[in-house]
């Protein structure tokens, strides 16, 4: 097991290097650079830019260097934990990400909780009562969540929240609480807002999890050991939850690692529509404005989390499933 982990970590290095390189290429791929979009932004608001000044700015930010020089500068600093400074925000990337991390993780966790509770309950139900009317109904609802474009749902819920509940939309707090220190009131205010993203992001994920849970459980329910448990006189619910459920949930548990990057990125589109104070909109904006270090930092962070997440998943799988552990 230990050598396995060591080997996997060892493999991560070239993978991450390739990813960092690809990340950089992706950031460089769109024509123009941060200044191009900055100038466009300025001229769109009516400003006339001084092209001489722009060239000077380009030199200041090193954007006039060839891409491989820029890459080398970026990655060599990245390795040292220096993610550079965001052009647009004028703030070190690390700080920028750090600031939004807590709330992002909070929402992601909440969404996860929502998704899991709903998905597991429905998944178990529809597996146990396979082909019943209830199964068809929850399956359809699940798929409906999958089929509805997230951003649409976000927009509609946002409008409903505003119209019906009078909730001030955009972000996770009312303006009064945005910069306020944490109090009970602020928490309540957060909870008033947070259900929209949780539902919107959750529904899409729930549907697929329901399918996975249902399929896994159906597979497991066919296994002879279920009959064994039955023959032992174990009550049905206990037989269900102790055996097939435990086995069926394994692939689930192992996806926890995969959620790691999702915790950070969130659902970008939804968070943009809802103007959440999470990393998602930061990321989207950075990509659009070609805020290279910010976009690159986030991209790399996500890639690293994905790779670590995968490793974690495998370790977790080995932990929950003795069969894997001993292989």
């Amino acid at each position, binding site marked *: 097991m230990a050598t396995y982990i060591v080997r996997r970590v060892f493999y991560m290095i070239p993978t991450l290097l390739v*990813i960092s390189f690809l990340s950089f290429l992706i950031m460089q791929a769109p024509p123009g650079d941060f200044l191009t979009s900055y100038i466009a932004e300025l001229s769109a608001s009516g400003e006339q830019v001084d092209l001489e000044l722009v060239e000077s700015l380009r030199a200041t930010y090193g954007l006039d260097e060839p891409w491989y020089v820029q890459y080398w500068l970026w990655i060599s600093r990245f390795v040292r934990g220096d993610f550079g400074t965001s052009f647009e925000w004028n703030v070190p990337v690390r700080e920028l990400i750090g600031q939004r991390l807590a709330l992002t993780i909070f929402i992601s966790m909440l969404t996860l909780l929502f998704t899991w509770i709903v998905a597991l309950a429905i998944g178990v139900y529809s597996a146990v009562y396979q082909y019943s009317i209830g199964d068809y109904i929850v399956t359809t609802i699940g798929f409906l969540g999958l*089929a509805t474009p997230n951003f649409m749902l976000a927009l509609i819920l946002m409008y409903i929240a505003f119209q019906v509940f009078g909730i001030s939309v955009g972000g996770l707090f009312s303006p009064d609480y945005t910069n306020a220190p944490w109090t009970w009131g602020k928490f309540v205010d957060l909870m008033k807002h947070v259900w929209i993203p949780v539902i919107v992001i959750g529904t899409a994920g729930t549907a697929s999890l329901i399918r996975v849970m249902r399929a896994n459980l159906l597979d497991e329910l*066919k296994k002879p050991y279920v009959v064994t448990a039955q023959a032992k006189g174990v009550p049905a619910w206990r037989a269900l939850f102790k055996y097939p459920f435990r086995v069926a949930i394994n692939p689930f548990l192992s996806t926890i690692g995969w959620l790691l990057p999702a915790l950070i990125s969130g659902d970008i589109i939804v968070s943009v529509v809802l103007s959440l104070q999470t990393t998602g909109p930061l990321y989207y904006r950075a990509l659009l404005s070609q805020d290279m270090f910010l976009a690159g930092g986030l991209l790399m962070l996500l890639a690293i989390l994905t790779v670590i997440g995968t490793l974690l998943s495998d370790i977790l799988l080995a932990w929950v499933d003795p069969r894997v552990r001993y292989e």
Partner: protein
Amino acid sequence: MADPQVEIGRSAPAEEAGQTSTYATASQWQLIRRKFRRHRLAVVSVWVLVLLYGMALFAQFLSPHDPFEFNDKLVGAPPMRVRIVEDNKLQRPFVYGYKRTVDFATMRRYYEVDPETKFVIRFFAKGFSYELWNLFPTDRHLLAAEDGGYLHLLGTDRLGRDMVARILYGARASLSIGLVGVLISFVLGLVIGGISGLVGGVVDDVIQRLIEIIRSFPTIPLWMALAAIVPKEWPQLWVYFGITIIVSLIGWTSLARVVRGKFLSLRDDDYVVAARLSGGGNAWIIRKHLLPAFASHVIASLTLAIPAMILAETALSFLGLGLRQPFISWGVLLQEAQNVRSVALMPWVFTPVLFIIVTVLAFNFVGDGMRDAADPYA
């Protein structure tokens, strides 16, 4: 025979019944079809899809109006109701026109049903001219309002364009993007996965690592970057193909995994060994045994991949990276509707969502059914 499922599920042959039963000569696909039919929701969904694709195929014929024809008299008009009763008498189906009033204080248009203007609906009536499939020039339409009238069964958009026509035309792009995208994914997945599974060793390692890397990539930036690579000079049709390729990039890795897995598991199956012992080379084995063996599984995976592609197109359009008007796709229609005033004032411009949902649902159910039926011998 420990497992009762096996015992009852496996139909023993009816040898004694001398006649050749259809079951006995039923090929794999016939059996799949038979098993598929048991999944009732899937069967219904197949018909729904046939209907949807029929709509896309005959979009021009089915559209009562030109999807680009704007109507300054009916900007953002709500759906018209088809009526058959007037003055308590049964009539040919017809719709009433709208009377428009504008509140200049709020800059809002109000539409009121105007019983004075009445447009009778004609079948196979004349309307705008078009060339069906670029082959048959005609101006016949399934439905159209009587000469000079309007028939906006799903309302009009902010420029007074007919939503029915736009949805129908949009179906052409949106429904084909899934298919084409899946086709590209399929070819990529098949070739790369096949090589990976067949050659094995270092090649397999490298391909697996590549897949892992691609999957490590968050999709949104990948899309954004790739969408940015699509040259801006390209005409819309090329952009469409460009977007399709981008969208298909999300699919091929998982398909390659399916293919590889199947290759690996089938490679050592007894009947494949038997074919090898009979003198079959790699090409023969792949063609005669491996491909047919996982074709059904792959098709099931493909079916399940299509809805993701359709949704990806809408998401790309939403981000402003995908197709754009004047090209019509469901994603474009949604992008146009993507604002609060549409939600509040003209919710009917969201009808494309219903079509997306139905399509995605249908593909998912069909895919589900296909997956269950993919292995009729299980």
